[in-house]
């Protein structure tokens, strides 16, 4: 169904980014206010369009009136609806924390909105080259945001991220080039037909698949292509860590889903089973190694970053298995991970602000000093491990179920093993927070307010509400998962048919 509102999902944050610059010239308080306003509009718009796409079937728009497949098409189906709402809502909520974190300046909020533009664009585009452009827009905005801490360390992390991210996007572009040579089209829906005609075993098609998947896997941070990610998450300002940990790799994983099922379709996997097997093995290695590396970390933000490597492995394994249950599980885990990991990074940043604690050792006695903050963080950690009925459990459950139904039961074993490892690294933190005697930094926080000069002595209310909110959503989303399944079933069925 054609719909004229769809391009607004990209246009609103883009124009908002310009408005932010302008408002910065007028008053210093302008940019955060404008960003909040723009993201509120964006969230409402995404929810409205998304609910219609889920209720009435896919909505599309041919940009500038150029007919697809020659022009660029924007499409919102059930899955992109979920992702575009997630992007808008999470970026609006994290903005609360961003304002507290005070990165300063109109430039920061402009980059913030440009990142939302790129991610929304990636979610709704129906054209593989357009996806590349949005990938680079979100990439450029992320590099600038990571560097916005202003110190040398964040500049090093941003440059490392830039080199990796650009090579990844370039490989993706090379893959698109091969697909273009093989078929002469760039429209996703059109490609799915044309690729079949070009022959799935043609070297051009296989090469394009390989390059595109490796490019997007790097952006998603699968092992061993993850090396940019811990530095980027660790050295970025706390609010930026929360935003990019929640959204950037999530949308890259969504793009991988689009490529695998809208462009290459399940028929490709049937014709080239080795592609599916390779992806499953790749993702399983990522799950296990990511967890093991996370266990080995002492710094909390770095541990959370390696944990993401493992969680995205889970998402990709769900996509690769490709039964309806596994793909649904992958989507649930993608959404759940965004909420839980975003919340955990906000919590880690807040704890750092309050007490200066950044390692597991220094977390000792946290719950005694800040019971609510400690409790909400622990709830998020347990949700991440996958304690029912949390969303972390629901996602893993459906992926494992899909794996068993597809006959690839070793994957279920890997998921179980990774759950134990996840428990291992979060249990250390929970034990420190609740059981261990208070560390020096917690003592300092108790005796004389914050260890950091000028830091707040109690968690700011807005940020605390945000962390509690994330914990509550993570817990109750697990209960709403059957409703989500009913809503998404038609989309998944049409994707896998």
């Amino acid at each position, binding site marked *: 169904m054609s719909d004229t509102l769809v391009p607004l999902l990209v246009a609103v944050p883009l124009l908002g980014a310009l408005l932010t610059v302008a408002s910065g010239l007028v008053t210093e308080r302008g940019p955060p206010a404008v960003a909040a306003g723009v993201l509120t509009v964006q969230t409402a718009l995404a929810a409205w369009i998304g609910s219609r796409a889920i209720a009435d079937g896919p909505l599309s728009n041919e940009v500038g009136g150029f007919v697809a497949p020659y022009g660029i098409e924007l499409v919102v189906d059930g899955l992109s609806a979920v992702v575009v709402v997630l992007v808008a809502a999470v970026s609006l909520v994290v903005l609360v924390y961003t304002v507290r974190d005070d990165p300063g300046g109109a430039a920061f909020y402009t980059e913030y909105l440009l990142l939302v533009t790129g991610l929304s664009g990636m979610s709704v585009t129906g054209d593989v080259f357009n996806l590349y452009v949005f990938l680079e827009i979100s990439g*450029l905005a992320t590099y600038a945001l990571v560097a916005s801490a202003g110190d040398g360390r964040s500049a090093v992390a941003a440059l490392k991220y830039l*080199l990796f991210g650009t090579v990844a996007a370039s490989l993706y572009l090379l893959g698109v080039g091969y697909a273009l040579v093989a078929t002469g089209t760039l429209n996703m829906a059109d490609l799915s037909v044309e690729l079949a005609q070009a022959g799935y075993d043609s070297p051009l098609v296989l090469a394009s698949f390989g390059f595109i998947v490796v490019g997007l896997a790097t952006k998603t941070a699968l092992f061993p292509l993850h090396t940019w990610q811990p530095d980027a998450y660790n050295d970025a300002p706390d609010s930026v860590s929360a935003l990019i940990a929640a959204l950037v790799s999530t949308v890259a994983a969504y793009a991988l889903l689009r490529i695998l099922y809208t462009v290459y379709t399940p028929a490709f996997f049937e014709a080239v089973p080795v592609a599916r097997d390779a992806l499953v093995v790749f993702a399983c290695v990522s799950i296990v190694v990511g967890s093991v590396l996370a266990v080995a970390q002492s710094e909390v933000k770095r541990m959370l970053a390696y944990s993401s490597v493992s969680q995205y492995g889970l998402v990709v394994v769900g996509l690769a298995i490709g039964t309806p249950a596994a793909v649904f599980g992958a989507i649930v885990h993608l959404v759940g991970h965004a909420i839980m990991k975003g919340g955990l990074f906000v919590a880690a940043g807040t704890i750092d602000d309050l007490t200066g604690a950044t390692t597991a050792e220094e977390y000792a006695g946290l719950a005694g000093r800040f019971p609510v903050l400690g409790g909400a963080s622990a709830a998020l950690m347990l949700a991440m491990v996958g304690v029912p009925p949390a969303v972390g459990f629901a996602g893993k459950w459906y992926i494992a179920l899909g794996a068993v139904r597809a006959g690839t039961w070793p994957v279920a074993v890997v998921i179980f093993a990774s759950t134990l490892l996840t428990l291992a690294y979060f249990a250390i933190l929970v034990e420190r927070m609740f059981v261990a005697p208070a560390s020096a930094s917690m003592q300092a926080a108790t005796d004389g307010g914050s260890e950091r000069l000028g830091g707040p002595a109690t968690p700011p209310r807005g940020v605390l509400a945000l962390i509690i909110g994330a914990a509550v959503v993570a817990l109750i989303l697990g209960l709403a998962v059957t409703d989500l399944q009913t809503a998404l079933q038609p989309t998944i069925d049409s994707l896998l048919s």
Partner: protein
Amino acid sequence: MIELLTTKYTYLVVVALLAIGAYVMIESDNFVKKIIGLNIFQTGIFVFFISAAFRTGGRSPVVQSGGGGGPFVSPLPHVLILTAIVVGVSLTAVALGLVVRIYESYGTINEDTLEEVLANE
């Protein structure tokens, strides 16, 4: 072999550019050289797209009044690469800006030296 060289030489150029770019990125310690390597790598991809657009005897895709006049060189890859070049320029600018910041903070743009400085920090 000779036939490959005379007919498919653009692809050899592409492969050479990709290999040189990747080699410079991996092997060089200097961040500016790494960025230039990245540029060479991207240029390889640009050449790939443009060579894919080529048709033997094809003209520029401007239809004269009255129509006809084919075959034409495909305009689509050229347009795509124009966009990709703009993206590449922006990336280079951001990357060089970051290198300036690194130099201001640590007084070096050499990766090995920087690793030492960061480890001792």
